[in-house]
C-alpha cells in the first residue's frame, strides 16, 4: 500500500464521517441539541439495507431508497415523540433523552437481529479494483463511490439550503427561532425537515460504512457516530461546510495515523488533534464566533 492509496482511503472514510456529521450539525444548528441517537440511526439504516439485500433480493438502488425512507420516518418519529415535548427546556434534559433513544434503538436492534455480527455484502461486490500509476494507487469501487456520493450530497445540500424556500426557512430558524416564527415560517415543519434530511443521510452513510467495513452489529453506529460528532465540532458545529471539512480531515488523519503511527492509538490521535484545534480556534475551524453580552 502506498501513501496515495492511504490518502484516498482516508478521503473515503472522511466522506462517510462528513455525511454523518452533516446530520449532527444541521440538527444542532436548527434545534440547538446534540442528537446522540444519530449514530444509531446509521446502524438501523445499515440493518434495513442488509435485510433488503439478503432476505428480499432487491436491487441495490431500491434497497438504499427503502433504507432512506425507513430512516427518514424514524428520524421524524423520534423528533416528534422524544425531542419535541422538550423543546425550550434545559439542553441537558434533551441530551439525556437522546441518549435514552440511542439505548432504545441499540437494544431494539439487539432483540430483532441478535448480537452476532452480520456480514454485509458490499453493494459493489461485482466491481473490480482499479490500479493507477503502476499500482501505486489502488482504488476500490467502495472508495470511488463513497467519495462520489459524498460530493453529490454536499452539492445537493448546498443548493437545497441556499436556493429553495424550505432551505431558507431552515436557515432562518437556525438564525433566530422567534424572529422566524414572527415572519410566518412554520418552525415545526422546518425542524422536522431537518431531522428527515439528517436521518436520510444517515441511511446513506450506514450503507457506505458497511460496504467498506462489512460487519454489522447493534453497536456499529456508536463509534462512527462519536467520531462524526467530533468532526462536526472540529469544523464548527452548526456550519454545513464545516462538517464536510471536519469529516474529511478527521478521516484522513485517522487512516494515516493508523497506517504510519499506531493502530491502537489512531483514535487517541484523532481526538488529540481535535483538542489542539479547539484550543487554537475555540469554536472550530469554520464556526461562528460567539460574542458575549452582559
Amino acid at each position, binding site marked *: 500500500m502506498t501513501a496515495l492509496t492511504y490518502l484516498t482511503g482516508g478521503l473515503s472514510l472522511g466522506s462517510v464521517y462528513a455525511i454523518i456529521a452533516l446530520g449532527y450539525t444541521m440538527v*444542532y444548528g436548527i434545534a*440547538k441539541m*446534540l442528537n446522540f441517537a444519530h449514530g444509531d440511526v446509521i446502524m438501523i439504516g445499515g440493518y434495513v439495507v442488509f435485510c433488503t439485500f439478503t432476505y428480499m433480493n432487491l436491487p441495490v438502488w431500491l434497497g438504499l431508497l427503502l433504507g432512506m425512507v425507513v430512516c427518514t420516518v424514524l428520524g421524524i418519529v423520534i423528533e416528534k415523540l*422524544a425531542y419535541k*415535548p*422538550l423543546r*425550550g*427546556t*434545559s*439542553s*441537558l*434534559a434533551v*441530551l*439525556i*433523552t437522546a*441518549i*435514552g*433513544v440511542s*439505548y*432504545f434503538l*441499540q*437494544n*431494539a436492534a*439487539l*432483540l430483532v437481529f441478535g448480537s452476532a455480527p452480520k456480514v454485509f455484502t458490499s453493494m459493489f461486490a461485482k466491481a473490480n479494483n482499479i490500479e493507477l500509476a503502476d499500482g501505486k494507487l489502488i482504488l476500490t469501487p467502495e472508495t470511488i463511490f463513497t467519495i462520489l456520493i459524498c460530493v453529490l450530497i454536499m452539492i445537493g445540500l448546498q443548493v437545497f439550503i441556499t436556493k429553495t424556500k424550505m432551505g431558507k426557512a431552515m436557515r432562518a430558524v437556525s438564525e433566530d427561532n422567534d424572529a422566524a416564527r414572527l415572519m410566518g415560517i412554520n418552525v415545526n415543519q422546518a425542524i422536522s425537515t431537518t431531522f428527515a434530511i439528517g436521518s436520510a443521510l444517515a441511511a446513506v452513510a450506514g450503507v457506505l460504512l458497511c460496504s467498506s467495513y462489512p460487519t454489522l452489529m447493534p453497536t456499529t453506529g456508536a463509534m462512527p457516530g*462519536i467520531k462524526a*460528532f*467530533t468532526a462536526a*465540532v472540529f469544523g464548527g*458545529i452548526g456550519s454545513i461546510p464545516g462538517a464536510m471539512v471536519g469529516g474529511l480531515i478527521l478521516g484522513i488523519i485517522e487512516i494515516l495515523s493508523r497506517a504510519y503511527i*499506531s493502530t*491502537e*492509538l489512531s*483514535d*487517541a490521535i484523532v*481526538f*488529540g488533534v*481535535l*483538542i489542539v484545534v*479547539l*484550543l487554537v480556534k*475555540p*469554536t*472550530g475551524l469554520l464556526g461562528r464566533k*460567539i460574542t*458575549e453580552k*452582559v
Partner: protein
Amino acid sequence: MNTLMKMTKSNMNQYKRSALWSYGITIAGFVIVSIMVSAGLISNSLQGQLVPICAYISLAVSLNLVVGISGELSLGHAGFMAIGAFSGVIAATLFQSLPFLWVKLVIAILVGGLFAGVAGVIIGVPVLRLRGDYLAIVTLAFGEIIRNVLNVIYVGLDEKGLQVSTSMDGIHLSEQGSMILNGPMGATGVTKLSTFFAGFLLVMFTLFVVLNLINSKHGRAIMAMRDNRIAAESVGLSATNFKMTAFVTGAILAGMAGALFALNYSTVAPVKFNFNTSIFILVFVVLGGIGNITGSIISAAVLTILPEALRQFSDYRMLTYAIVLIIVMLATNNPQLKALTAAASKQFKAKFSRTRVYKRPQKADEEMGGTK
C-alpha cells in the same frame, strides 16, 4: 437588606437540611443493607453489586459537583475513574506485603485519587478555556484518549521494581515477576480488597468534601460563576481558579471511586471505562436532579440496581431501561407535564404542611444545563 439577610439565612438552612438528608440517607442505607445482608435477605448477585453501587454514588456526587454546581458538562468522567482504577491496582500490588487489608486499600484509593487529580489539572487547564458544547466534546475526547492510551500500557513487577512499556515485548521480568497491566486485557489477577464498609466510608468522605465545598465561600463563588460568569468576574472572582477547584476535586473523587471499583474485581479491562460509562454516570446526575446531591445518591443506587431488578424481563431488560429513562425525562421536563405534577404536589403540600417551599430562581434553573 433585611430581606437579603433573611434569604441568605434560609439558603443556609436549605443547604444544611439537604446535607443532613444526604448523610442520613447514606447512613440509613448502609445500616439497612448491612442488616439485610446478615439476615440473608439479599441475593448473591445483588451483594456483588454493593461495592459498585458505592463507587457509582461517589462518581455521581463528584460529577454533580462539576455538572451541577460548576455548570460544565463533562462527558469524560470515566476517564478519571480509569486512571484511579489502574493506578490504584498498581499501588495495591506494589504494597501487597503490607500487613492489613485496609491499609493497602486506603493507600490504593489515595494513590488513585492523586493520579486522577494530576490528570484533572493537566486536562482542566485547556478544557476550562472552552465553553458549552465545545467543552463537553473536549472532555469526551480526553476520556477516549485516556482509554486508548491505557490500551497500550503494559506494566510488570518483579523484585527489581516496576517496568512500564507500550508493548508486551518491552517488559523482561524475572521468574518471580508478574504482569499487572496487560494492555487491552487490563489488570488481571487483582486481589480483591474493597468491602461494602470501605465503600460506605468513601461515599461519606465524598459527601463530606462535596457538601463542605458547596457550603463554603469557594462553593458560592463557583455557583455564582455558573449562574452568571460575566457578573461574577466583574466582582473580581477568577473564573479559571474556581472552575478548576470544582473540576479537580471532581477528578480526585472520581479517581478514588475508580480505585475502589477496580479492587472489587479480579480483572478490570480499560474497555470498562468507555464513553458509555461516562454517560451512565451522567444519567445518574441528571435523573437525580442537576445540582441535587441527595438526588444523585438515590438515582445512582436505584439505577445500578434497576437492570438487576429487571432480570425477569431478561432480553427486554435494557430496552425497558431505555424506555423508563425517556419517560422519566419527558415527565420531569416537559412544561405541560411538569405543570401538572407541580399543581398536584402544591395541592398535596397545601393540605398536609404549612412549611414554605424554597425555590431556586427560575432563570438560574434554565441556565444550569451549560450547553447553551
